[in-house]
């Protein structure tokens, strides 16, 4: 039977606890829901470590547990907004340990994004905060295969890895193939939950007579563009990056600069969380761009751009 992402993560974590003697640490892991059904239901297992509610200290304890790579350690952060507190020692110690001190600190941080009705701190993706820091691997897998690839990469690496998970991905079981057309007018590059919206938008664009290519970005640092993406952009010359983190001053900006380095004559726009704090109500919330907003943006971009030379 095909596992969805939540089931796949649970299976990997169970294997880590039972077969590899690893530790899974975090706050309220065994609470209702078992972190969206991604933590194995083994409440009495000694490797399942409930941390106290001290956010900064908890992150430091997880970092210390991972030092020297004596045991595989997974640190679960239930809401990515809390990374501002939880990640202090990850950024300031774990990410520097191997380079400065020659001591491995392969801590795997499962940082879970959620959005919709959870307010100004807990909501949204925050993987951008790590982009500027050396010594950290960052990935945003949305499928079991992608998540498994990140997992395998991490455990052969001396540095910490942030897995930017999104709760909207937990029911996904199949891969997200890229979408390629013969003569794309625009190339979409989507990240995290932006991939779900972009996938829907791609279908809607076709209905509107607009050919678009869609590529999915999983590896954020080191940044690895998906195969075929740059060629598509060389053809379309128009790119829209869709992320579930803030669109201003974050990952998408960095990605855009890297794209321009490879395709200098491309025009790039970015969509992500708006530059405002999220409220709790639907009318004040701040969420990943919807497919209709993406379609609207693409239409606007096509209208604005100069006519293409054929």
């Amino acid at each position, binding site marked *: 039977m095909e596992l969805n992402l939540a089931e796949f993560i649970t299976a990997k974590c169970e294997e880590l606890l039972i077969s590899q003697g690893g*530790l899974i640490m975090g706050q309220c892991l065994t609470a209702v829901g078992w972190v969206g059904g991604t933590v194995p239901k083994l409440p009495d297992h000694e490797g399942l*470590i409930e*941390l*106290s509610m*001290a956010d*900064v*200290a*908890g*992150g*430091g*304890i*997880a*970092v*210390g*547990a*991972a*030092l020297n790579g*004596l*045991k595989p*350690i997974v640190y679960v952060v239930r809401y990515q907004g809390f990374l501002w507190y939880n990640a*202090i*020692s990850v950024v*300031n*110690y774990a990410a*520097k*340990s191997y380079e*400065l*001190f*020659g*001591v491995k600190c392969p801590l795997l941080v499962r940082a879970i994004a959620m959005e919709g009705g959870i307010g100004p701190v807990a909501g949204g993706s925050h993987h951008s905060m790590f982009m500027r820091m050396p010594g950290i691997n960052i990935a945003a897998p949305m499928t079991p295969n992608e998540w498994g690839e990140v997992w395998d990469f991490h455990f052969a690496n001396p540095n910490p890895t942030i897995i930017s998970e999104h709760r909207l991905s937990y029911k996904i079981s199949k891969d997200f193939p890229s979408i390629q057309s013969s003569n794309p007018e625009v190339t979409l590059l989507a990240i995290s939950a932006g991939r779900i919206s972009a996938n829907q938008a791609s279908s809607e664009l076709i209905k509107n007579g607009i050919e678009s290519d869609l590529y999915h970005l999983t590896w954020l640092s080191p940044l690895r563009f998906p195969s075929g993406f740059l060629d598509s952009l060389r053809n379309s010359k128009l790119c829209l990056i869709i992320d579930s983190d803030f669109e201003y001053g974050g990952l998408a900006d960095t990605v855009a600069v890297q794209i321009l380095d490879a395709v200098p004559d491309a025009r790039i726009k970015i969509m992500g969380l708006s530059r405002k704090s999220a409220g709790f109500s639907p009318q004040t919330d701040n969420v990943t761009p919807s497919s209709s907003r993406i379609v609207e943006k693409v239409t606007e971009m096509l209208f604005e751009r100069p006519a293409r030379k054929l």
Partner: protein
Amino acid sequence: MYYVRNFELGVVSAHKKGLISIPIYLGIGQESIASTLSCFLPKGIPIFAQHRAHSYFLAFGGNPNYLKSELLSNSDFGTKGARGSASISSTEINMFGHSGLMGDQVPIAVGYGLTTGLPTLSVVGDASVEEDYVMSSIGYAVKRSIPLLLICEDNNLSILTEKSVRRNWETSEVAKAYGAKSFDIDDTPASIWKTLEKWNMKEVFVVNVRTTRHYWHAGSGQDQAPQIDRLSEMRESLELQGLKDQVVAIESRIKQEIETLWN
């Protein structure tokens, strides 16, 4: 104690000659703590200290040439000053580096103790113990019965701000409230030794050691002659016990060794 003192006086001299270009944090006046701990604790105990830790590096057997090389930022032994004075570390003696974020070594030490189950030493100052995450880590270590020895080198100063300006609580009292065994003592080797004898190496044990910093927070400056000097007291005590000749011989050997090292 004498070795550490003389090594650091060599650092003072090198700093005043302009040979050291990185920030330095001297522990002159506080050597009795690391020295006594190194005699008492098992060899290889994991050490999580912060800045002002040359004494721990040397007393626990770190290579003095390596430390000198780090301070001079040259490539003879170390990392060309990348670890410098504040983040000195050594895998050979199981001393972990410090990030520069005061007090973060405490939760990290707790995590290391959690994974390994080994008695683990963490050292803070009276300023870093005020960091948000230090006492909450102690509370968690107590909950998990982690064999942590937390030493607070209490010189009463955060740079130049005295403790009474910053807080109304004492480290040992708060640690006790969290359920840790804790003590507040002076920094004579005898006091430290007798207190350590009460640690069973299976539980959280917090010792606030009142001590006297002889030099500035950073650099090689000094405002006034120190009121307490445990090294001088120790020498006088040994002489009173009729050990003057042995003291002179040991000091002479160390002095020569240090002179050779720095020249």
